[in-house]
């Protein structure tokens, strides 16, 4: 992730004073972040998930696609009929649920991360353009975004997946497209706010080129809300991917994506609650963790945004 650039509430002090008064910006950021206990808990949980994702093949007790056909729908170990070799039980094909959930974390993080990157970059660029060219280009971009925002996002995603065909990459693309407008709007709003500031005028007068103005002068100062938005859309990307999987349009089997696991387990809801409950719970907890972190980031990075829901 990009290095967060903390923005302090006091901007009057000169740079030298600031470095004397304050510890390093990172320390200060951590200080603000760690005051939020929820955020720290979220971060801790995310660390576990990231660890699982990175080392999935070593952490997972079984191959997630291996079908143990003698052990279909084995309940979790604490229930009657449970088996210590399948701690969270098995699914309808006798695959180890824990291993699939661990492997699934890889996928969900991948989907979340890549769709954020894929929509963040063009989103920020379009937002900058819209902010810098308020006459013709800006409004046209904004109208386009209005159009996309007017369509219910899930329907749009379904249509895009239908066009591209289901699959991991196409799911990512669909989610990225759907979350594009919020980046554009946010960037534009931030840019419009910054453009009238003195430092921008100063840079202009100093003869900075347009790209320099856009990317070096203005953009870094718009980063705080964007970082917060990126965390939020990271979590909603995971939710959207799961929803697409639930509608049968997600990644291809036997890939263990959480939403797809949930959808295929739906038929067993009366007989084997764990195959339905556990993937859903995993989605909930990870999304919650990311949102908690997002809250913490927002409080730490941008106190002004504290009131935005």
């Amino acid at each position, binding site marked *: 992730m990009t290095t967060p650039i903390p923005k302090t509430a006091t901007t009057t002090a000169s740079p030298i004073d600031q470095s004397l008064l304050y510890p390093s910006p990172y320390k200060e950021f951590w200080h603000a972040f760690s005051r939020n206990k929820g955020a720290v808990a979220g971060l801790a949980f995310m660390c576990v998930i990231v660890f699982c994702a990175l080392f999935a093949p070593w952490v997972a007790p079984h191959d997630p696609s291996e079908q143990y056909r003698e052990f279909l729908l084995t309940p979790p170990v604490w229930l009657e009929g449970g088996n210590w070799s399948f701690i969270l039980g098995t699914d*309808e094909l006798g695959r180890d649920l824990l291993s699939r959930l661990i492997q699934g974390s890889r996928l969900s993080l991948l989907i979340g991360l890549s769709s954020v990157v894929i929509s963040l970059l063009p989103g920020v660029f379009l937002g900058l353009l819209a902010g810098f060219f308020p006459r013709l280009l800006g409004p046209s971009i904004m109208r386009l975004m209005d159009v996309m925002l007017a369509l219910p996002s899930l329907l749009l995603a379904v249509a895009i997946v239908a066009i591209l*065909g289901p699959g991991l990459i196409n799911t990512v693309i669909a989610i990225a497209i759907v979350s594009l407008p919020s980046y554009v709007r946010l960037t534009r709003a931030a840019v419009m706010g910054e453009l009238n500031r003195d430092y921008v005028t100063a840079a202009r007068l100093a003869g900075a080129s347009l790209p320099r103005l856009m990317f070096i002068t203005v953009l870094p100062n718009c980063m705080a809300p964007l970082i917060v938005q990126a965390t939020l859309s990271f979590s909603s990307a995971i939710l959207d991917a799961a929803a697409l999987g639930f509608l049968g349009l997600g990644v291809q089997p036997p890939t263990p994506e959480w939403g797809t696991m949930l959808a*295929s387990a739906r038929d067993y809801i009366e007989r084997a609650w764990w195959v339905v409950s556990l993937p859903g719970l995993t989605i909930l907890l990870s999304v919650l963790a990311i949102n908690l972190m997002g809250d913490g980031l927002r409080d730490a990075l941008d106190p002004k945004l504290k009131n935005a829901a």
Partner: protein
Amino acid sequence: MKLLPLQAAMAAVLLSAAAGLAAKPLVVCTESSPEGFDIVQFTTAVTADASAETVFNRLVDFKPGTTEIQPALAEKWEISADGLTYTFHLRPGVKFHTTDYFKPTREMNADDVLWSIRRQLDPNHPWHDKSSVGFPYFESMGFKDLLKSVEKTDDHTVVFTLTRPEAPFLRDLAMAFTSIYSAEYGDQLLKAGKTSDLNNKPIGTGAFIFQRYSKDAQVRFKANPEYFRGKPPSDTLVFAITPDNNVRLQKLRANECQVALYPKPDSVEGIKADPKLKVAEMEALTTGYISLNTEHKYLNDVRVRKAISYAFDRQTHVNQLFGKGNAVIGVNPYPPTMLGYNTANQNPPLDLDKARALIKEAGVPEGTVLTLFTRNGGGATNPNPSLSAQLFQADLAKIGLKVDIRVMEWAEMLSRAKKGEADMVSAGWASDNGDPDNFLSPLLSCDAVKSGENYSRWCNKQFQDLISKAREVSADTERGALYSQALAVYDAEQPWISIAHPKMFTAMRNNVEGYHINPLTNNNFATTQVK
């Protein structure tokens, strides 16, 4: 004496209570909304159940629970020796429904039959262009070329002339798309300029009169007191549209509906265990299969196709997918109860060594990737396509073939499979009329390679000659022998892996009586009631 009025009142109360009981509606939980009620414009079974089976009748129909033909609107018929002329004698005194939108002035006669058939056959018929996508079933069954003419000789006699002998013709006439409409109602709508009403406010001769339809919620019918086979026992019939099969079952348990169609095969055991419920079951005339594209590299080698057959763990597959005893393992393209089923064909035993040897012999490199197209929602022939595909994938992995599963939306899969993009397609077929031709011609003929439905793209001259011939002869024994030979060719060539012929189930409350489960998967409630 003074007590009399009170007694009378009490009796009246009791009577009306009894009437209230008798009027208990029969609620059937169905799987989806009918597309409309002008059945000739549509193709799905749900639509047929809500129109052809309730509102309409045909000249002939299937005896409940069988594929045998019985007289319906035609009392009797003669077939000429050359098999080209069919003469139908209509049943007198059959009345069309009287509703608030239509009051018939005459009984059903030959004009109604002509109207119903010519509307689809004759491009100059005033109703011909009123269907925006044409008459799909009529056309896909090849009736345009098959029918030379339909004429009436008197008010109660209709003559069909064919261009060539067609053994399954009588059975075709029992299918939904030959339902008999009221010509009088048609004329009335045309005059009023309300042609779309034919689709919303159907009029027929059937056991039930259409009352109301709310999309995605329910269809309501009431009994037709003048039905020619006698008024059906249920006064009110409601189709409660409930797409999720778990929910259908939950509603049945809660007595929100008395009949639930298409329960998941693996929930059947639980239904049987519930003392308040029962299950009707039957070996339906359906097949779930995987086509092997005989035009693609490696699969064009019959040894590879045989190897897949050796590696495919049929027993586990069928048990997992349908539950033990809920399906017959497939060998031939159609189920054992049908004409010409070849009992000499047998599935090979599960033999991975043999399979590996065949693969090696055919020179298929280790780790060759084959694509398998499958749809994203379950249906009667495959309740869980994704599960089925993953089981198959695991089987083939054992002999070094990698299966790339592509779960697709139904429409996309059809479109791409027809273009021959897939190596393998997981598909299914449900018989329309119980005739073997209805399996082999649409799915495995050379014509079907051209139009795309033959996903194996397998055009075998010997096979084709046999099934073409079987179409034209009329004696069942002779036809049976021809089909049996054709199936031997099929078995040697292995263009498909036939997975299973699933049983069909209908779950209902214990007090439901007179329901017949049908091998053609249609549902008719004319004799069903809640006791």
